[in-house]
């Protein structure tokens, strides 16, 4: 971790927008690693741990989970000492929560419905939701994009590549 003095313009990365306090990106990264490390270590302890000679299924996850927790703590501690310059210098806008939600929703919708609705209808909704995430894309334009992309994908995947995916699914009697 770098202990170099904070670069100008990094105040957005600090808690409360003040010059003092932990560097928020580093703190969050460290906390994420601690959370994952603990989750894997605790989850791994439900399996047979075994011995160093005959390691059980839990041995490696517990060891690595512990290591990740330790590394996460190191990053958390370091976050109080200075900002990682690669984060501080990055020109980042605010997190686009809505657009992100639309994209994730589009993908999840596809996963849930592609089997039941079939490729055609499922893809139409997915591309429509995804297109809505664009800057300045209104529903009308998103619908046009969705229809065009669905036709393109059906052409590429079903007709050209012969993937055996039903265009209409069971739910629609296809």
């Amino acid at each position, binding site marked *: *971790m*770098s202990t170099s003095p904070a670069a100008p313009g990094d105040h957005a990365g600090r808690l409360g927008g003040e010059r003092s306090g932990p560097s928020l*990106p580093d703190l*969050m*990264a460290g906390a*994420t*690693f601690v959370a*994952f*490390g603990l989750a*894997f270590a605790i*989850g*791994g302890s439900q*399996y047979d741990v075994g*011995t*160093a000679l*005959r*390691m*059980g*299924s839990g*041995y*490696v*996850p517990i060891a*690595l*989970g512990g*290591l*990740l927790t330790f*590394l996460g703590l190191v*990053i958390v501690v370091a976050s109080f000492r200075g900002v*990682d*310059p*690669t*984060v501080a210098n*990055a020109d*980042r*806008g*605010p997190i*686009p929560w809505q657009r*992100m939600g639309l*994209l*994730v929703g589009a*993908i*999840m919708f596809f*996963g849930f419905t*592609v*089997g039941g609705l079939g490729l055609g209808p499922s893809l139409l909704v*997915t*591309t429509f939701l*995804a297109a809505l*995430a*664009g800057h*300045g*894309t209104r529903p009308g334009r998103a619908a046009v*994009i*969705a229809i065009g*992309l*669905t036709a393109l*994908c059906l052409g590429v*995947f079903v007709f050209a590549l012969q*993937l055996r*995916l039903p265009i209409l699914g069971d739910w629609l009697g296809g």
Partner: protein
Amino acid sequence: MDGILLGLEVALQPSNILICLLGVTLGTAVGVLPGIGPTATVALLLPITFSFDPVASLIMLAGIYYGAQYGGSTTAILLNLPGESSAVVTALDGHQMAKQGRAGPALATAALGSFFAGTVATVLVALFAPPLASAALKFGPADYFSIVVLGLLASIALASGSAVKALAMIVLGLLLGTIGQDGFTGVPRFTFGVREMYGGLDFVSLAVGLFGLAEIIRNLEHRINPSLVTKKVEGLWLTKEDFRRIRMPVLRGTTMGSLLGVLPGGGHVLASFTSYSLEKRISKNPEQFGRGAIEGVAAPESANNAAAQTSFIPLLTLGLPAHPVMALLVGAFIIQGIQPGPDVIETEPELFWGLIASFWIGNLLLVMLNLPLIGLWVRMLSVPYSVLFPAIIAFASIGCYSLGLNSWDVFAVAAAGLLGYFLIRWGCEAAPLLLGFVLGPLLEENLRRAMIISRGDPSVFVTRPISATLLALALIIVVAALLPSVRQKREVVFSGEDD
């Protein structure tokens, strides 16, 4: 020699030439799209290749990879939007050349330099891979464990940014790799009782999420209006003076790239950065660099492509991926029922030599295709992002679903994308995570095997000479990466990325 002839015989079959051509074209077409780097391109196009037989599918993948690299350089030069860190340096002078109306020569330099470097590096792979593979056959589980550790730790030294974060990303990748059925005992781990998760997280989903979806969310932070400097590229040909100027940089870049490409973790990134700074240092007119010096395009492009080629050496001889694209190729090998490693030359000579011969053919096709077709690629560049990213979402969803008709593979894309977006935003690079994920099972399996053979004595890792040497190397790399003086140099090398 017999090997190369066998390879040419395989690669020159009309169907395989066609496959290679298709791969190169698709790779360039997708790779040229702004915001999609080579890794995302290969991950997105991977599902398409699975409908072919193993040799054809790997030839196509290699073609996609070169095409994507070339496409990435085109985007870097014309739009100043490098798709991946290895193209960042190309953008420095290449985009300046384009602004001065010399986009044609810049693109031609990139293509010719890449072709030369690719040719030399292919010969190197053919020369050095077989002896290395037969040496690797002597490796025991302890040695394998140590070489994986070396590979993973070396990727930290080459990652930009915080070394501790890179290490944490590797460990997180290793942990994600333990999800699914335990290869030793058959116990399903971290599957929450979901049968579809027994096979583990799908690596294509992870790669598409980390490098595709995360990148899209990042791009949506701002309204992006890439300014195409030129709608038309004219005057592709280089002058005699240009040829004279690029000759030595191409040679030096090729040498540097061939050597550094073998390094795990990101040798190709390092290769393009070092060869650029070398040219700048020895140039008589260093002030021209950054203002459209043709040497500043020739050297890193050659280095980049040579490294792309020689990074196949650890993959084909040890089964170790040197960077994320190679990690995707490991997955492709495994899906085709081939375990990449030292045996591949013996058990699948057609595949091994066919692949090597098609490297060269792929490079040749790139030069022959891309310069005449440049007008088409420029048109691809003008596809608006508002249409492009929903298309990527659609392709990613269908591609990941079609691999196993498993909805969980699609959900994994969303999860990996969210995880990747936030971690990248918080200053953690995604590449070490993917490397850890792919190498995790290999690491665990060899660790457990080595411990059984040594009857639970961990000293086996330092008493076997091969293993001890590898671990010592790994230690040196970690210490070096943490030393203040080297850290500063690393920051200087990577500081170019912020420009």
